[in-house]
């Protein structure tokens, strides 16, 4: 390398949204892969709790069919919540977050990449497993499909909302409790439309309105929440 490298340093290192997103997504997935316990814990929690309900309320087929979608959604929501604190906390503690903030990429890029990786290791496996759990509640094939689809659209919203709340509680003492108080109420609309979709399908109505509203929610959340996360991360680093 020569002096010329220094003069043109900025031209060499160009920041871009795509590169920042891909970097964060690949990195967080690699770390999750090295440390699979956390992802498995989320999945195990989801499966166990959703399987305890039929044992607890008895084997009355009609009752199980009615509560099934709602119970599975609540379990998914709590399971997704379980892995939220880790999203930014360890990167904040070891200085990685500083390095990301000082990279040439726009902040929203790697923030979005991290949220996407969080979803891929929490919401996605839950959505994929949900039809199996739905079988325990005697849901029919169409309802199972709608349940999985609603989770597939709804869990990214949970990751996005959760990320905004975690970023806000960064560095706060007792952050875990604060996070629950902050995030769980915000999850309510997702729960209502998500569980509503499968319930509508089970009672012979169209699930489409619920799914459309969930989809609209996802688009709005994906467009706006990363910006809120960026602001919160900046405050946490200052």
């Amino acid at each position: 390398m020569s002096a010329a490298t220094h003069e043109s340093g900025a031209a060499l290192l160009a920041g871009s949204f795509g590169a920042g997103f891909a970097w964060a997504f690949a990195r967080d997935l690699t770390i999750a892969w090295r440390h699979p316990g956390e992802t498995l814990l989320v999945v195990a929690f989801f499966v166990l709790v959703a399987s305890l309900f039929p044992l607890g309320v008895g084997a009355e087929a009609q009752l199980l069919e009615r509560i099934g979608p709602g119970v599975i959604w609540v379990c998914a929501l709590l399971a997704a919540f379980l892995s939220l604190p880790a999203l930014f906390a360890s990167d904040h503690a070891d200085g990685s977050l500083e390095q990301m903030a000082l990279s040439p990429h726009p902040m929203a890029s790697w923030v979005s990449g991290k949220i996407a990786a969080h979803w891929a290791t929490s919401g996605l496996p839950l959505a994929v497993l949900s039809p199996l759990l739905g079988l325990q509640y005697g849901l029919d094939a169409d309802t199972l499909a709608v349940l999985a689809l609603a989770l597939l659209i709804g869990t990214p919203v949970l990751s996005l909302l959760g990320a905004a709340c975690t970023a806000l509680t960064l560095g706060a003492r007792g952050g875990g409790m604060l996070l629950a108080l902050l995030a769980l109420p915000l999850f309510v609309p997702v729960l209502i439309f998500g569980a509503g979709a499968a319930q509508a399908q089970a009672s012979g109505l169209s699930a489409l309105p619920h799914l459309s509203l969930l989809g609209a929610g996802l688009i709005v959340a994906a467009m706006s929440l990363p910006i809120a996360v960026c602001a919160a991360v900046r405050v946490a680093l200052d």
Partner: protein
Amino acid sequence: MNVLEARSLTGSRGEARLFRDLSFGVAAGEWLAVRGPNGSGKTTLLRCVAGLTRPDAGDVLWNGELITRDRAHFHADLLYAGHLDAIKDDLSAEENLASALALRGVDAGAEAIRAALGEAGLDKRRQLPARRLSAGQRRRIGLARLILDPAPLWTLDEPLTALDDAGQRLFAALLARHLARGGVALIATHQALDAPAVRELRMDA
């Protein structure tokens, strides 16, 4: 021509005012040693210069332009190493270095990364998860990063902590090379560093 300039910076940590009306300039090939007792605001000053912390008043200019005007451009030129080493325990030394460089958009290549880790004395340990490295060895991953990253502005907070004599000599050599290439460095340190073209900034508690 690289030049870093601070104009009447005022910074505080919480309620405490740490420095007031601080001005300095560092030109290409020069480095500024920031010295002072614990709690005198060295880290805060470095964070202000890097753009992590907003100063209460004053401006930081890089090559004559406010660093807040084009963040991406400034950050492309900046290598910042705070006292947190940003090393992931689950990744190996090699992966940590590759990841840090990729984040900055530096395309070094596996061969160069291996060579740099060798130069930093981690040749036999580059595949080990970072959790199994000692504090000094983790610092050496940072040294390897200094070898490969072409950023013209270094902002380093206590870079010699936990390094042995050989490590400190390597750092001094890297700094000298950086300065010879026309780089600029701002370094908070307590130790004496054997590198040319030093200017000193004393901070009072």
